[in-house]
């Protein structure tokens, strides 16, 4: 009997808070999840509010949803959250947050969550690394299920001689092909396709070094990559941190089926530096960034990379002979990097900075959205943050982008998600939710190179370790681009 009385009292306690003092401002929540559009399959948007004893969230949609937690952290129940997203899909929800502090209830200004009809790709990979300068010690490639909080390691450099690993990238196809570079003595490019995981040495005697940045076309056979001699240096100006430049850089095409690497005079040689290649949605064009070579680091601020394009024949794997300039860097006064086409072929999102080829360290870095039909450029003023919005990735539906942003503190990169509608309107971005909402405030690691994809990677860190130590890297032959 006593038990039932206690249960009844506790249940009564779940009534919405009443008789509170209303505040005119939005709740001081971390992370900031106010007035955003969210995918219909996103994990709970857990948040915290400092110095409160209790948080209550009343969500008004088709029906009312009430969540209450003691303490400073609002962790939504996952089952209840999923149910709410399913029932309220396509609706705009009005969120009332009420807090209790020192026995005083406080109501905050309401805000909205637009539950999008569009779902986001279920998986997001990113690299966990301390935002150090030249050295690293522990770094991991993590695959996160964005529908919940599950994480697993795709790579952990503790198990691979502490080698650097980077650029986990997927082509987001139904039969996905992915790659990731693992450096070190026994490293190589890890290529995964149709259930097979291969380790490839992409360096040849005729090309300058191994593959770096790149993409794989949707068929999974061809990849377009940069080969670059990358040099890090340090700024003395306290407003800047690190500078990274390419002593030289060219583009190469890798045929994973035939095991060959080829290049083309149009995108190699000393006159220009070419980097950050990306396939168009139909695979017939390669967008990339190109600048006239200049002596560096002295002329580093004059290194302006234009957005260029070159034809590609997906049947033969041949690059065209003519480079077209899509947007001249000098004409807009910005240097381009990381162009990425939306899978529906309509949009191209790119990173722009004041100069150079390594925008991650540039605090002025922004994202621009280019309409590939009209050529119109949207500078995304309402989307870009104060500091460094850079590496981005499209979801396979073309309705969501994720990008690495240092907007919160200028140093630590975090994955932000934004909705892109059919007209190219990009919503206010929000940071990837975490089970522990204080994670971003306490972690000493950056989450960089975020990459969205619909199907889970078919290997993990354990497999990667075995491949690293036990498998010899396949050697690819150089093939002339005829």
């Amino acid at each position: 009997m006593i038990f039932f009385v206690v249960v009844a009292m506790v249940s009564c306690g779940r009534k919405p808070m009443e008789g509170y003092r209303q505040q005119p401002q939005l709740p001081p929540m971390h992370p900031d999840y106010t007035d955003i559009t969210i995918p219909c399959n996103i994990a709970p948007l857990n948040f915290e509010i400092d110095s409160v004893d209790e948080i209550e969230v009343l969500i008004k949609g088709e029906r009312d949803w009430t969540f209450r937690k003691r303490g400073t952290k609002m962790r939504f129940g996952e089952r209840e959250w999923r149910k709410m997203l399913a029932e309220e899909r396509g609706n705009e929800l009005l969120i009332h947050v009420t807090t209790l502090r020192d026995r005083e209830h406080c109501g905050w200004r309401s805000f909205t969550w637009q539950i999008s009809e569009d779902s986001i790709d279920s998986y997001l990979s990113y690299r966990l690394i301390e935002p150090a300068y030249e050295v690293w010690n522990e770094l991991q490639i993590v695959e996160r299920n964005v529908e919940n909080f599950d994480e697993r390691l795709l790579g952990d450099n503790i198990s691979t001689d502490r080698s650097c690993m980077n650029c986990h990238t997927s082509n987001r196809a139904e039969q996905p092909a992915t790659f990731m570079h693992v450096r070190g003595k026994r490293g190589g490019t890890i290529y995964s396709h149709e259930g097979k995981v291969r380790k490839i040495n992409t360096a040849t005697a005729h090309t300058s070094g191994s593959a770096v940045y790149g993409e794989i076309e949707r068929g999974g056979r061809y990849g377009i990559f940069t080969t670059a001699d990358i040099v890090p240096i340090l700024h003395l100006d306290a407003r800047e941190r690190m500078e990274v430049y390419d002593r030289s850089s060219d583009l190469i095409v890798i045929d994973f089926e035939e095991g060959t690497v080829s290049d083309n005079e149009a995108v190699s040689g000393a006159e220009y530096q070419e980097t950050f290649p990306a396939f168009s949605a139909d695979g017939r064009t390669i967008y990339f960034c190109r600048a006239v070579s200049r002596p560096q680091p002295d002329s580093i601020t004059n290194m302006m990379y234009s957005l260029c394009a070159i034809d590609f024949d997906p049947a033969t794997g041949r690059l065209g002979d003519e480079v077209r300039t899509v947007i001249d860097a000098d004409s807009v006064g910005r240097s381009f990097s990381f162009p990425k086409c939306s899978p529906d072929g309509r949009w191209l999102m790119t990173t722009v900075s004041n100069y150079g080829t390594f925008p991650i360290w540039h605090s002025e870095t922004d994202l621009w959205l280019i309409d590939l039909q009209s050529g119109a450029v949207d500078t995304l003023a309402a989307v870009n943050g104060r500091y460094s919005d850079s590496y981005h990735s499209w979801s396979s539906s073309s309705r969501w982008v994720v990008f690495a942003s240092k907007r919160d503190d200028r140093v630590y990169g975090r994955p932000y998600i934004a909705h892109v509608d059919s007209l190219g309107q990009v919503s206010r971005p929000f940071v990837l939710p975490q089970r522990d909402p204080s994670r971003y405030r306490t972690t000493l690691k950056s989450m960089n190179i975020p990459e969205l994809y619909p199907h889970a990677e078919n290997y993990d860190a354990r497999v990667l370790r075995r491949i690293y130590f036990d498998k010899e890297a396949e050697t690819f032959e150089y093939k002339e681009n005829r």
Partner: protein
Amino acid sequence: MKQVDKYARLVLPALMAVAAWLFFGVFYRWHLLYFEGNHLFLWTADYARETICHLGGLGDYVMRFLIQFYHLPLLGGVIVALLLLALQQGVQRVMQLSTQSNALWPLSYVPSIIYWAILCDENFTPVGLLAMVAAIWTAVGIARLKNSWLRSAITFVGLIALWLAVGGGAVVAWVAVVVIELATKRDWRALTATVLAAVVVAVMWLSRPWHLSDAMMVTGGIYFRHFDIELGAFYKLWGATSAVIVLTPLVSRWVREWINVVAAVAVVATAVAVLPKHYDANGEDTMAYYCLTRNGQWNEVIERARKHDPQTRPAMICLNLSLVMTGQSGEQLFDFPQYGPAGLFMTYGEDLIFCGEVLFNLGFINEAQRYAYEMMVTYSYLQRSAFTITRLAETNMIAGRDQVARKYLNALRHTLFYRSWAENLLELMDTPKAIDEHRLYGKLRRNQPVKNFAFFSEKFDKMLEEMVDQRPKNREAYEYLMAFYLLYKDVDSFAERLIIPTKGLPRAYEEAFAMICRINHVNPATLPSNLNRATFDRLERYIHAYNMSGNNPEVMSKDWGRSYWFYTNFIRF
């Protein structure tokens, strides 16, 4: 002899505890401070969870909790001394339980003496010591249980839990439990429990998470500061401890009091002979220089150098930085045995710790921050260390990156000894213009470079030139640059940059200037009156003495060893 044996048994523990306290709390205090500075214990649930949730994590957490008190070295010495004493007393208790006598009790000091020697190397953490203490007293606790079934159950559960809690040091508990059991009760259930516990641990070992190496399974990765775990020392230690525990009951029946007394003398003599050899005097001295420099205790650094010449390059860098920071470099640079520009800076590949202090204090805030980051990243054990986190908070605050500075300061608010420091800085950031007006941070903010340029640690003199060109009022950078010129023997660049103030030149500068004048046949009479003519006369006397000495540095050093001229003629680098 019986009385001697009895009194020795009573007195020696106290003697060892006091000796260990003095050793670590007084003579190794800079080691303790340095060790503490490379840790950061946070009073938060997240930190506890993060630390405890791995093999040996509980031991790691408890020890990190204790290490924070190294901040007060005398208290830190007490902690180490008590742990060593607890280990000795535990081993002695195990020996008593297995022999029902005090036979060979002096051997119970062997494990503590070995760990004492191990702790002289700052790369070894005291977690392994705590693990052994926990292991040995767990064995003693189990032996006290009279009920056979209960003892067996506790043995099984306790040994597994112990291994999970403190790591490989738990092996000592297995040995002790088995020896006590065999020597006394011979209960098959308890013995079976030890075997079963070992089987469970073996199964866990074989099915361990793929990323854990054998070395990590042995030590939990926390007994040693670096990734390449030094297992040999632990094998010797555990082997010696096991040998003491196993052999004692086998030979106890033949042991007489006089043998105990002889053994006690032998153990004390061995300790007295061995431990001083493990005392790292140079390391202690260097750490003293670092800690004093880190705290901006410039005069204490110089005083220390006056008593004993710095023996290591990092110590020399601390001294020269202190001379510059106190404005005494021009006067006293050659009062100390300089051996070239290596005493001013090391390249990025050689050092991150000491040169980080140079960069910070000369206004190279971006580089100081980079060095702190790299230091934090390079040594995983230092992932969160007071030295790096406080420096990162400072550099970000000076550079105006308030948000990230607050991130570090908010973490420091959860510490015992850095809380008020962090709150002061947070208050400073909340007060408009307070940083600009702050004695240290305001100056450092003003001393930063104005224009951007690429930094190369291999060309630090060029970096200083750039800094001085951009920030002519950065006195510290100017003096450091002049010290570079002098130590490089680059008198042309020195003369080019030399500014002669109205009150005249400090001694070292004037000696260099007099030398330049003589080389260029400048008549001293034509020079400004604020230059001391006596220096020119001294130079003439030096040249005369040099010619008379037959180029003999030993003869010359007596009267001229503290002059720039002597350095120029005789010091090679």
